[in-house]
């Protein structure tokens, strides 16, 4: 770990930035969200708007040309984006997770410093290939291996799910260190578009997060060994990828949940306007779902603040403890379950207007997106980890 600068953007500038984010949300993301979803197409106009705000480099330190947000600010941006288009927010979050890996573990290295400068100045889009055919969602095992030849290497990975693989400029690939390494001796390799070929293997016609275009590919890449992040992937995962993923995913799911409750609130208000003497049933349901939303929000915000605290102390030991992993796993399990609960409760309030695809209260996309949350790193896999780790936990 080298990056400890969690001071972040000044409060005032950040509030302004967040206003801009909500503005593109209202003007560009929301109007396109239904089409993105219906046609499972990449939300190009929304990503372009995000790029205009220089947000691709949001988590890159200012001295490298980024905006220098800290992790809680980055999480707030994901939360805001989630209120307008789940797919766009997911693309943004996944990009930032890769950025965080490079920022936290590459900054002592000239190559990665320059690389991050380029990401900020050119608004490069970073994608991730961790999932592998034959392994599934276990991040800590790889079949593919880096094959080194002098200073260069080749790496071929059969990746069944790479979000926006076609649109990305760079790919972060997990792999075994050498062809002789055990499955868990992994490195994190960064290859650029000109370094790889993608052979499509699987389409992305899914229930939700349709705009992430998470198609499957056989990735054939080559590069210079300096493109391998120096830290072992085990460290990158526990200190950066694992906490950042679940905090940023949790944040955008929170955004989706928030939007659904906002719609339920608007629906109840409309109802009251039409018939002030209507029974209070829907309002009661709104009160109920609102309290669940608060629970989810406080949990997501609290975990982000805790992580920020540990990062600012540069506390690698604390980040590596089982108790911190358990906490982050709990965040994932609860937020991915609560999003379904909250959207379902909102649907009950909006009734048939929420069930329809063509009303302003439609919750179809929200609900379909919500079900993806528990599958991206399967909740049962995470629960299994916690079942083991809790044997080594002294208590809270």
């Amino acid at each position: 770990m080298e990056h400890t600068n969690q001071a972040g953007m000044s409060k005032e500038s950040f509030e302004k930035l967040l206003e801009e984010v909500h503005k593109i949300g209202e003007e560009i993301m929301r109007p396109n969200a239904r089409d993105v979803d219906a046609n499972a197409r990449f939300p190009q106009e929304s990503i372009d708007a995000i790029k205009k705000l220089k947000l691709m480099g949001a988590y890159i330190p200012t001295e490298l040309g980024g905006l220098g947000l800290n992790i809680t600010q980055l999480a707030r941006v994901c939360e805001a984006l989630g209120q307008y288009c789940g797919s766009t927010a997911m693309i943004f979050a996944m990009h930032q997770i890769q950025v965080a890996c490079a920022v936290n573990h590459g900054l002592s290295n000239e190559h990665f410093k320059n690389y991050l400068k380029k990401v900020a100045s050119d608004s490069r889009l970073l994608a991730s290939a961790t999932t592998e055919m034959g392994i599934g969602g276990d991040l800590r095992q790889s079949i593919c291996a880096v094959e080194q030849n002098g200073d260069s290497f080749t790496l071929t990975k059969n990746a069944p799910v790479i979000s926006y693989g076609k649109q990305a400029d760079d790919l972060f690939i997990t792999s075994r260190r050498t062809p002789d390494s055990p499955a868990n001796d992994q490195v994190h390799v960064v290859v650029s578009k000109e370094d790889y070929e993608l052979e499509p293997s699987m389409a992305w016609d899914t229930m939700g997060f349709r705009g992430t275009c998470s198609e499957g590919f056989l990735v054939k890449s080559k590069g210079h060994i300096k493109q391998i992040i120096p830290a072992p992937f085990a460290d990158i995962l526990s200190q950066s990828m694992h906490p950042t993923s679940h905090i940023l995913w949790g944040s955008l799911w929170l955004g989706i949940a928030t939007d659904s409750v906002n719609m339920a609130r608007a629906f109840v208000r409309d109802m009251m306007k039409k018939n002030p003497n209507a029974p209070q049933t829907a309002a009661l349901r709104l009160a109920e779902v609102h309290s669940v939303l608060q629970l989810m929000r406080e949990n997501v915000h609290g975990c982000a603040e805790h992580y920020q605290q540990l990062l600012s102390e540069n506390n690698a030991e604390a980040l590596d403890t089982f108790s911190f992993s358990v906490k982050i796993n709990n965040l994932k399990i609860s937020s991915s379950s609560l999003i379904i609960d909250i959207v379902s409760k909102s649907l009950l309030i909006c009734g048939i207007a929420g069930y329809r695809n063509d009303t302003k209260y439609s919750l179809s996309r929200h609900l379909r997106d919500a079900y993806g949350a528990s599958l991206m790193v399967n909740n049962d896999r995470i629960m299994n980890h916690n079942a083991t780790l809790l044997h080594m936990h002294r208590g809270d």
Partner: protein
Amino acid sequence: MTVQKVREILEKNGRLSTPVTDLADDSDLYNAGLTSLATVGLMLALEDEFNIEIPDSMLGRKTFSSIQSIVDVVEQLTQKA
């Protein structure tokens, strides 16, 4: 002394794919096949044998990453006692 005992405990509880005798004190135990479930057994055996309680702040991946790092933790805790 501690090293020898740690090696014995590891042999019995580590369920490694590599025999402990083939491992150097600084070899990576995860690469030698140590799983998180086996880590639980290892931790319980260490606590029993040395009559220690490893605190949450030391219960992490790094502690169990090599024979040496286990020895360091055990020695730190037995000295305290």
